[in-house]
């Protein structure tokens, strides 16, 4: 892009000083190419941002390390800003404590749900203190809001009876 720009600059100067008005089409041509390159890069970067935004809604606040590795420093910064804005917004809804809108993406039918474990996760603590050992293929009956995060990450599987 720099080469195009420099060629254009020299041509513009020449057109203005030497009165070679017929260089204008050439200048326009190069200008169009520059605009096109800019459009493509901007659209690519914007699309990446849209996908990172989707990651916050799908994965939760903490991203796995391999994903973080693929993002640039600016994208990480943008992600953190977005997380903060979302958190501030959620806190401002619904009364004193705020409302977590990333929960309950699908309308809930009951308070407790049946889940099956897809892979080993380890110990998992429930609200009233009992902890549950999550081994592969073990089934549990757990409160909905605790499991939603894990189900979305693929650790648990929601079983419909």
């Amino acid at each position: 892009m720099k080469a195009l720009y420099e060629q254009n600059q020299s041509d513009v100067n020449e057109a203005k000083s030497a009165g070679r008005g017929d260089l204008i089409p050439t200048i326009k041509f190069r200008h169009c190419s520059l605009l096109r390159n800019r459009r493509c890069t901007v659209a690519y970067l914007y699309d990446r941002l849209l996908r990172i935004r989707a990651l916050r809604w799908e994965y939760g606040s903490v991203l796995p390390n391999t994903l973080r590795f693929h993002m640039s420093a600016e994208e990480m910064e943008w992600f953190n800003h977005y997380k903060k804005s979302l958190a501030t917004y959620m806190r401002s809804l619904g009364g004193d404590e705020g409302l977590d809108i990333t929960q309950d993406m699908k309308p809930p039918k009951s308070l407790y749900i049946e889940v099956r474990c897809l892979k080993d996760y380890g110990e998992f603590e429930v609200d009233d203190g009992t902890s549950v050992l999550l081994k592969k293929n073990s089934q549990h009956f757990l409160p909905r809001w605790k499991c939603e995060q894990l189900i979305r990450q693929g650790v648990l599987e929601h079983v419909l009876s």
Partner: protein
Amino acid sequence: MSEAYFPVESGALGPENFLSLDDILMSQEKLPVRVETPMPRLGAFFLERGAGAEADYALPQGTKLELPLWLAKGLFDNKRRILSVEIPKIYQEGWRTVFSADANVVDLHKMGPHFYGFGSQLLHFDSPESADISQSLLQTFTGRFRRIMDSSQNSYNEDTSALVARLDETERGLFQTGQKGLNDFQSWEKGQASQITASNLVQNYKKRKFTNMED
């Protein structure tokens, strides 16, 4: 990911959307063009036109080129100083009569996968046929729409490649929206609407992780 990722939509039949990836792909399609004024120093780009390899070679007047839409749009000017655009065959008289005869038979994917989008952008170059082109585009679309809607709403869990093969990009988008609606309705009927599932992104990510480990 499919639930949370909202890509920038195409500008469809109006002005293009700057950030839309679909529009960028569409404006890459080529257009036959005739150069009206000689263009200095660009001869090196178009070497296959028999020009010399000198850096200062000017593209002579009257050269016929195939330029992508974005370039043609940028260089076009109402006083027609630099370029004059020829309408591609598909939008001309002959094909227009074919479309008015029966629009359902034509393989629009072969005719340039962005038939409707490209056609709408063509109206930017004022040509005496613009009114006819827009009329023909509308008629083709209305003619084909019924079939697209029917086929998208009635093929559940089937291989749709035969149905989609002859559609252009805009129509494929419509078809996919229809399919998604159908799938959502079916899953609601089965009672899966309240079942929390791992997102598509997570599932794809797991598959990709395996290939990383194999490397």
